[in-house]
């Protein structure tokens, strides 16, 4: 098939895949379009079988790791970890809105770093919402903090974001070195978010909430211990050259077994928590993007992205990655950019991550998807405060991007 036609077809299928994944018509799984799309590209020879097999082999460990991390988050929730965090924030804040915001920042940043941004968005945000309601404070600053930190605070560890997991194998870094290099950028991003959100929502962060914030929840000591050991395991396995996914698996087993034995979860719950359709979607998306990058887009991206590790190059890489993440979505963006920067070493790969992880605070899911999502919300009688959302994004994303990239540049010189 001539390359322009092949490229248009792959591009069209990528858009269809993404639209279906976001809109999910009739609640159908996102893999429903992605898998046939990948199959069609294989069938037509747009994506050669050998390339597909190589891509699948390189994605498989990442997908396994992702499954283990998703399971870890779900099982921690079943231990009541997030409810306990909500009660802790309520008590610790003593009804003061700024103190509460600081605690939400601390908890959301930690949860995102250790249990991935998914856990912050799906498991923590509703708890924060309920906590704020119980304290009789205004929800908006705290909810924005959760959604923003789910992105900005997902820089620290390979497990913090699916994009990190994808880049982790390409970067050639160990788990420990990844974390050590990204610690400064992570802190820089959180600090900028704090400064901007604190100012932006100054009008809402006033007054006093309730002093007696409802029932205390016991801290799930066992679950915290397992998570701590799992975190330690990530670093230890990397020292001994063992895949850190095994540490995640170990943690998931340690949490899962007592829950299964006491019938607090069923085998079916565990199977559902693995989210197999999503794992299939990631694989299929990887194949569709691969086809697209084989036919021209890959070389275009290579031209766009500089290779060096000077501060200027790193900034440019981060900006290109952020723009791409906002145009399409950060998942395909990172898949497109990785092959172009992987050869240049860990610095450029991590700069890509700063772009694709923090950039989405501008349009969240990519501009196309945000528009679609707005319609979905309207049908439910809710609305997305699009101008406020974008204004806050425009105020945070550029400084976060610059601060985190400068921090990365410093970090690369310190950690090496």
């Amino acid at each position, binding site marked *: 098939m001539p390359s322009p036609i092949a490229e248009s077809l792959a591009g069209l299928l990528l858009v269809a895949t993404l639209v279906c994944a976001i809109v999910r018509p009739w609640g159908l799984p996102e893999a429903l379009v992605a898998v046939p799309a990948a199959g069609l590209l294989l069938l037509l020879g747009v994506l050669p079988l050998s390339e597909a097999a190589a891509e699948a082999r390189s994605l498989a460990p990442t997908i396994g790791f992702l499954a283990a991390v998703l399971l870890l988050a779900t099982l921690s929730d079943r231990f009541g970890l997030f409810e306990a965090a909500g009660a802790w924030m309520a008590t610790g804040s003593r009804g003061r809105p700024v103190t509460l915001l600081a605690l939400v920042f601390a908890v959301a940043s930690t949860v995102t770093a250790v249990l991935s941004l998914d856990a912050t968005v799906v498991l923590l945000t509703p708890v924060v919402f309920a906590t704020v309601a119980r304290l009789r404070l205004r929800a908006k600053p705290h909810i924005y903090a959760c959604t923003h930190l*789910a992105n900005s605070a997902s820089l620290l560890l390979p497990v913090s974001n699916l994009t990190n997991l994808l880049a982790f194998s390409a970067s050639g870094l160990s788990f420990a070195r990844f974390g050590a290099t990204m610690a400064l950028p992570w802190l820089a991003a959180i600090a900028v978010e704090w400064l901007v959100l604190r100012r932006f929502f100054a*009008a809402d962060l006033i007054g006093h909430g309730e002093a007696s914030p409802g029932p205390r929840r016991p801290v799930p000591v066992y679950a915290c211990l397992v998570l701590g050991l799992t975190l330690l395991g990530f670093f230890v396995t990397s020292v001994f050259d063992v895949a850190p996914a095994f540490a995640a698996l170990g943690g998931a087993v340690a949490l899962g077994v007592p829950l299964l034995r006491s019938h607090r979860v069923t085998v079916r719950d565990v199977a559902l928590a693995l989210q197999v359709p999503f794992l299939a979607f990631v694989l299929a998306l990887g194949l569709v993007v691969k086809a697209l990058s084989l036919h021209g887009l890959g070389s275009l991206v290579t031209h766009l992205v500089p290779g060096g590790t000077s501060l200027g190059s790193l900034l440019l890489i981060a900006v290109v990655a952020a723009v791409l993440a906002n145009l399409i979505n950060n998942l395909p963006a990172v898949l497109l950019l990785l092959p172009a920067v992987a050869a240049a070493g860990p610095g450029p790969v991590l700069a890509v991550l700063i772009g694709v992880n923090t950039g989405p605070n501008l349009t969240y899911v990519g501009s196309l998807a945000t528009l679609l999502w707005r319609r*979905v919300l309207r049908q439910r009688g809710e609305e997305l405060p699009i101008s406020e959302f974008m204004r806050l994004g425009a105020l945070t994303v550029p400084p976060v991007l610059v601060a985190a990239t400068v921090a990365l540049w410093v970090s690369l010189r310190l950690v090496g």
Partner: protein
Amino acid sequence: MPPVRIVVWVVEGTWQGCVDAASHSLPSGAQVALLHVTPSDVAGVAEVATSGLLGRAFPGRRPTRSLQDVADEAASELLAAAAARLGRQDAELLHRRGRVEREVIRAVAEKVDLLVVARDGDHSRLGPHSLGPATRFVVDHAPCAVLLVWPDEPPGIESIPPAPRG
């Protein structure tokens, strides 16, 4: 003469001061309504974030209650607490949902004599922008008298900056 009709706009964080100020300045025989507006966009912010996950929706963890339900319940409790603090169990409780500033104006559009509003905004930065956007909108557009109260201690006169020279 029909009784004076007063609406007290109750907002999280500042409602106590607002209710107290209203109770001090209530004329006898006034009809009181307590108004709370749940913003319709906060749940949207939380939900758009889930769309960013592209379907990693954590099956089995569908929240038992939607965020809107949580917000509605909290609003009813807040209004009940405000009525109790005011000591007027006959107060009408108005719960609206939508764009906050517009819903407040809609609620006082007819036959309301006085709207009691707590100042919000950053009290450490007094000046032209010292009110939050929603409060500013309400103060500007309310078709009735507005009583603007400090939810906490009013600032001293030393908060006035020195007069510009010349």
